[in-house]
């Protein structure tokens, strides 16, 4: 048969190619953060002049779309309502127009997921959570705020002090565009200094309370105080 004695002129090219690719793979893993940053910058720059949306397909451009339920929920902005409830002076049901009447604020920050991906320089626009809470009037002695997603499952929470930070927003605009369905629109939370799981998508209710509730991922052992680089046993650069 053909597979007899090895030909002395044969060279083990197959093995070299396989080992070479393993080396290339290891080098890519090692250089990953730099490559990601480079591609992210390129993709970011391209996406500003890209009506086709194809730049979103560039690897490393960033976003991964998570949902803990079976589908991506959606409320059209016209029928969207944000409830502010709990221990407040007056419970509110805010439309997107109501939200737009509050003082607008902009913030640019990297978005860091606890699973490792990071999207550089995301431009958010919305209102401060503190202003939303002030509009409802927080009763004295309240220490916590709980967030409910209209996906029916996801919840998150912050301490009252965290909720009053200037980099904790209720946002409706992402990179200059209304926040889409996969990103948790039309209105979501943005807790800029913390890992992405704190930034509750598809925000439906803000509940003021005198005790801290356990959020969805916190049930599975994630940290309540999810500061980027200082929690969950991780050492990412702060956003």
């Amino acid at each position, binding site marked *: 048969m053909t*597979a007899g004695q090895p030909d002395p002129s044969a060279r083990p090219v197959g093995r070299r190619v396989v080992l070479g690719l393993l080396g290339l793979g290891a080098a890519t893993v090692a250089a990953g953060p730099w490559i*990601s940053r480079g591609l992210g910058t390129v993709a970011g720059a391209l996406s500003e002049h890209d009506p086709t949306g194809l730049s979103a397909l560039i690897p490393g451009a960033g976003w991964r779309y998570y949902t803990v339920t079976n589908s991506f929920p959606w409320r059209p902005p016209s029928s969207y309502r944000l409830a502010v409830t709990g221990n407040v002076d007056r419970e509110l049901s805010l439309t997107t127009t109501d939200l737009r009447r509050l003082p607008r604020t902009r913030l640019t920050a990297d978005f860091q997921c606890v699973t*490792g991906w990071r999207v550089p320089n995301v431009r958010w626009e919305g209102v401060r959570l503190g202003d939303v809470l002030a509009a409802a009037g927080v009763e004295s002695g309240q220490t916590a705020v709980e967030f409910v997603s209209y996906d029916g499952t996801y919840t998150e929470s912050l301490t009252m002090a965290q909720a009053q930070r200037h980099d904790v927003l209720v946002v409706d605009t992402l990179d200059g565009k209304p926040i889409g369905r996969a990103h948790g629109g039309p209105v979501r939370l943005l807790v800029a200094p913390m890992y992405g799981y704190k930034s509750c998508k598809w925000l439906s209710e803000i509940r003021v309370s005198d005790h801290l509730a356990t959020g969805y991922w916190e049930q599975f052992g994630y940290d309540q105080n999810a500061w980027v680089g200082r929690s969950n046993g991780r050492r990412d650069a702060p956003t």
Partner: protein
Amino acid sequence: MPLPDTKVSTRPETLPRFTRAETWVHRLTAALVAVLFASGAVLYDEQLALLVGRRLVVEGVHVVAGLLLPVPVLVGLWLSPQLRADVGTLGRFLPVDRDWLRRRDRRKAKLPVGKFNAGQKLASAVIVGAGLVLFGTGLLLLAPARIDLPVALRQGATITHDLFTFGLLILLAGHLWLALRHPEAREALRSGRIDRRYAEREHAAWAKQMRADYER
């Protein structure tokens, strides 16, 4: 009436090229790869994610298909001596393979190509290498967030998994394109037997060897 040359008439129209184990390894691996690309696309692309939803299901399918990916090959290597021999042939480059790669008239030059040409040898090595990289980085991505992998390692695994996927996608597009253009090769992976004339044209040295074996 004179009979046609008996030697010619007894020559088989097809030659045995792959065993059943080999055709099944190819079929099952191809199916797993198709599932991996489809589920991976849903996990990767916003529009597809919105269309399909059910992220946890898609994620589970992707992980299970990925973990199963090496199984058909490993079982095949265990069961089939011919697959082991073919892997050996694929890994070894002969002088004719260099010739084949260098010459623009490679398909017309009547080179004594063996069972696999240099393109097939290179492609199979690249697929194995890239497959191993994707498998390894996939395992890293499976590590739950609570496990303290260095963040650079997670980020590196993510981007490497993405980039190698795109690379492999291009290679497999070429693979399918060549399969479309070579129906005889497709038939060989279906039935295990290849058209003799095609083999004599594309794999002259191998066809000659097979004929010698047959006539012996």
